[in-house]
């Protein structure tokens, strides 16, 4: 089960990942379409104390958003390590936004729908990983962190 990790020292804050994310989730997967449809990136790079921190849904093993969703619109797929959002069932009540302990869900107020990372579902690698010019975004198996510590 692969997850996204970030090397803070490498992130320039260029936001290529944000743009790639918006494009990947636009109808025709073009920048033009992403702008026209006002697609919100599911990832955001935050600047704090001189450093850049990319952030998107962590697909937590303990997932308060899934537990709290009052419409049964969020489901955790254990095998894929993925929190799946069923937009058809979602009523835009914002409970998930209120309980996410990372602030990783962006409320798209216009579309009345919470926007969160889907790890680019069917692709081999999320678009943000491909787009990052400095390889600051890592797409790694979970035990990777243990190796980093060694």
């Amino acid at each position, binding site marked *: 089960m692969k*997850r*996204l*990790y*970030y*090397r*803070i020292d490498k992130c320039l804050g260029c936001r290529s990942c944000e743009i790639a994310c918006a494009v990947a989730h636009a109808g025709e997967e073009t920048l033009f379409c992403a702008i026209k449809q006002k697609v919100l990136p599911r990832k*955001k790079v*935050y*600047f*704090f*104390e001189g*450093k850049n*921190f990319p*952030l998107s849904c*962590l697909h*937590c*093993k*303990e997932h*308060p958003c899934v*537990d*709290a969703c*009052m*419409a*049964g619109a969020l489901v955790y797929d254990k095998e894929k390590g993925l929190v799946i959002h069923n937009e*058809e*069932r979602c*009523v*835009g*009540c*914002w*409970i998930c*936004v*209120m*309980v*996410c*302990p*990372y*602030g*990783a*869900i*962006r*409320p798209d*107020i*216009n579309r*009345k729908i919470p926007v969160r990372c889907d790890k680019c579902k069917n692709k081999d690698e999320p678009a943000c990983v491909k787009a990052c010019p400095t390889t600051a975004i*890592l797409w790694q198996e979970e035990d990777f*962190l243990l190796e*980093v510590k060694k």
Partner: protein
Amino acid sequence: MKQFVIAGNSAAGISAVEAIRTKDKESKIIVISDEDYPSYCRCLISYYLAGEVGEDKLLYRPENFYKDYNIELILNKKVLRVDPKKNRVILEDKTQLNFDYLLIATGASPKFPDIAGIKKRGVFGFRTIKDVKDIEKILPYTKTACVLGGGLIGLKVAYALHRRNIETKIIIKSRQVLSQILDFEAARFVQKKLEENGIEIIFGQDAVEIIGDGDTKAIKLESGKIIGCSLVIVGKGIIPNIDLVKETNIKFNEGIISNEYMQTNIPNIYTAGDVCESFDITLGTYAINALWPVAIEQGKVAGLNMAGESFKYEGSLGMNSLEFFGLAVVSLGMYRIKENDTSFEELKICDEKRNIYKKLILKNNLLVGGILIGDIRNSGLYLRLIKEKVDVSAIKEKLLAENFSYPVIKDLLKKEKEKIYV
């Protein structure tokens, strides 16, 4: 093999069942509900009435859920009484069920004011699918509806009726909407939104009588004013469904009292959800927080402990998220402080032009509550700071800044649940 009996088939009950099954796949589980439906999303019934959500989407769990989880489901039957001495419950048809562990998750019912005519046809509470279906029957003949109460349920119903092209008036005793979750200033934003969209609100008045011969024809207000309407919906709070324990030694106040394991004073009887009082971490006292996410959390804790764990509940707190005509609202924990109480500190942004209002309340450098209107981004971070009792003195001026985000609080948190930065 044990026998678990779960009274209540909604948020708390289902969450408990799922938790029990993570630990115990074998034991028998019996779930009882006095409603006629498998578990459904209670909070969505206003969307259902509005016509925004179809009946098929109300189901909370897939159809085969009870089979997959090996649960015996008893619908349409009330639990009349708990008999703690003999470890059994008695149902309305006199059936008796024995239990090793019992969960009381019977939720709550609408509170009806004691006024003349309240039993007339056309007066409804708003709690169940059945309520919606009954309301639905008289909608074709309804031009005007009055909603009594300006809380969460009242406003949601008013919104739904408005969507169905019913002329809707909300009658509120206090001088603001949502007085249980918003301060006066914040409530003005919501009020404005509702009024702009054609919902009339009458403040400072209570209904004193429902007028009509059998069918509702009008309501009379304290002022003597009479408003013609054929539909009245009561949203004046709830009462926990505790009748089943009233003649037992199970301790209750307004709700059934639970300890930090969601256990009642009888060790093998647990309680969770709207029916129970639990420790409120922002109020520092026992309280009923009748909320969906709270019921889920409590059900989970109860379930784990019934299955043999000893899992402590961190306590509940008020947490509401709402949306009206594009205006998003979040209210967490303490939302208002008493005038002249200097032990609290308030941080605030009020921007009427952009329709944004944000207020945070701190005590001894700990966040204890807040209100966010118009811009609810990162509200989960505030909830986390409240729950984890994080000292925010170092980031006080950043809390309401534009770039407030997870990195700002990251190093202050005691437990890092998931690590993503290397």
